[in-house]
């Protein structure tokens, strides 16, 4: 089933926490050099899915192929090698709260490159400018709003110009203008660095605009996958209800 264009390929992934099944035989393909967007309900397991892709969680069963290599059986040392190709923005940003904004963004550069301080400073300034936070270097994470923290997290995730970037709800909690700017940044990340973007999003309008392909997660499975146009035309009542944001339909509010 695996396609040459797929950079990540997931087969029958199962994950439960105790008796609570979150991923229920999920299959998913994510394309190289594309913006892949995963949509689904809150609490539906999107963050759990993305944590499996980067090896923070191990599945109960199933395979996760990154460039054809199954990462499920890898140990921590081997996983560290795979992770160097990834950048990740956490849903709550996960900034180091003992470090200021500049140090947070510089952190992966100090750790994984031999760049000098001035070279690192240049990269940090460029990344902060890209997320609209120039001049905020000295602020501590506790002094920032949720949206600003998220943008610092984004700058940090992009600092090493990774080949695969995972974005966990990059625009939730941002005002519409900033959300649009971040969406543009995601597209630019793909175009300029040729990175594969994997985005979790609630924002249907933006998803339709920037996605190359969309996968919908529902009850532990991917129930629909396709281009924005295909998803919009999808006849599955669950997908239709979700895309249109309607209270009435097969998805129960509880």
């Amino acid at each position, binding site marked *: 089933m695996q396609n040459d264009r797929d950079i990540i390929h997931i087969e029958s992934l199962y994950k439960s926490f105790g008796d609570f099944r979150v991923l229920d035989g999920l299959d998913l393909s994510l394309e190289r050099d594309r913006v892949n967007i995963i949509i689904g309900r809150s609490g539906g397991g999107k963050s759990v899915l993305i*944590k499996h892709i*980067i090896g*923070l969680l191990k599945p109960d069963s199933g395979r996760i192929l990154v460039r054809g290599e199954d990462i499920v059986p890898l140990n*921590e040392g081997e996983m*560290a*090698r795979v*992770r*160097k190709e*990834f950048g*990740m923005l*956490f849903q*709550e940003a*996960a*900034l*180091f*709260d*003992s470090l200021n904004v500049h140090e947070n963004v510089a*952190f*992966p550069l100090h*750790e*994984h490159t031999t760049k000098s301080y001035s070279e690192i400073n240049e990269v940090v300034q460029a990344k902060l400018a890209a997320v609209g936070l120039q001049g905020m270097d000295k602020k501590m994470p506790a002094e920032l709003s949720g949206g600003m923290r998220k943008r610092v997290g984004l700058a940090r995730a992009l600092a090493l110009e990774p080949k695969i970037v995972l974005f966990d709800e990059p625009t939730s909690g941002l005002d519409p203008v900033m959300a649009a700017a971040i969406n543009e940044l995601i597209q630019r990340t793909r175009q300029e660095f040729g990175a594969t973007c994997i985005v979790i999003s609630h924002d249907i309008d933006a998803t339709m605009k920037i996605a190359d392909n969309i996968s919908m997660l529902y009850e532990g499975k991917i129930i629909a996958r396709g281009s924005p146009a295909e998803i919009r035309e999808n006849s599955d009542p669950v997908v239709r209800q979700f895309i249109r944001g309607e209270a009435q339909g097969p998805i129960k509010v509880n």
Partner: protein
Amino acid sequence: MRSILGWLGHQFLGLLQELGRIMVLLLQALSWLGRPPFRIRLYFKQMEFIGVNSLFVVALTSLFTGMVLALQTFYAFSMFGAEPLVGATVALSMTRELGPVITGLMVTGRAGSAICAEIGTMRVTEQVDALTVMAINPVQYLVLPRIVAGVIMLPLLTIISDAMGILGGYLVGVQLLDIHGGMFMNKIQEHVTLADVYNGLIKASVFGGILTLVGCYKGFYTRGGAEGVGRSTTQAVVMSSVLILVSDYFLTALMF
């Protein structure tokens, strides 16, 4: 009766399991010893935090411990005219026992709890995961420097503690209770050997390892938000204190 035994058994198994997990974390941390990258700054930062910042509270508590020891032993010893031995008693108690134990317990309260709260907060806010995602091993980055700092700094603090305790004993014994100063010091020299001092320092090293390891362990496996951080911090302090006192007994039995 049976249910009490069952409950005890359950608790005991739980404790064993926890000690096992702590040992696993220790071995993981030690496996990174001497492996690059070294990040010397992290070690110095922890040594400052655990050692330098605990200096005042350790010195103060030790001073008063020495003072009260002198007061108590003076009354007992004066019953059979052994007042000059007060100094030696204080010095032996401090170097062999109270210096390391007081230092261990004070640093547990000051730094062990803070280590747990800091790492626990990093865990529940996904900062530990963020390290992992950046291909930085969190045990190497967070746990090892703290354990090393504890093992190195506790003996140094204990030297201060011993000295302050003896000073306290001197102040009370000689200045307040009129023991002859020369006799006081002579008896200390006569009865306290170097082995008393360095065995005490070895104990202190072990306590430093225990309180940092337990703090890291409880922080590392924290669950459940801010409330969880509070819970594991309390547990870390209780568990470290208990382990310090229990291991103190066995170390003493082995050494002296």
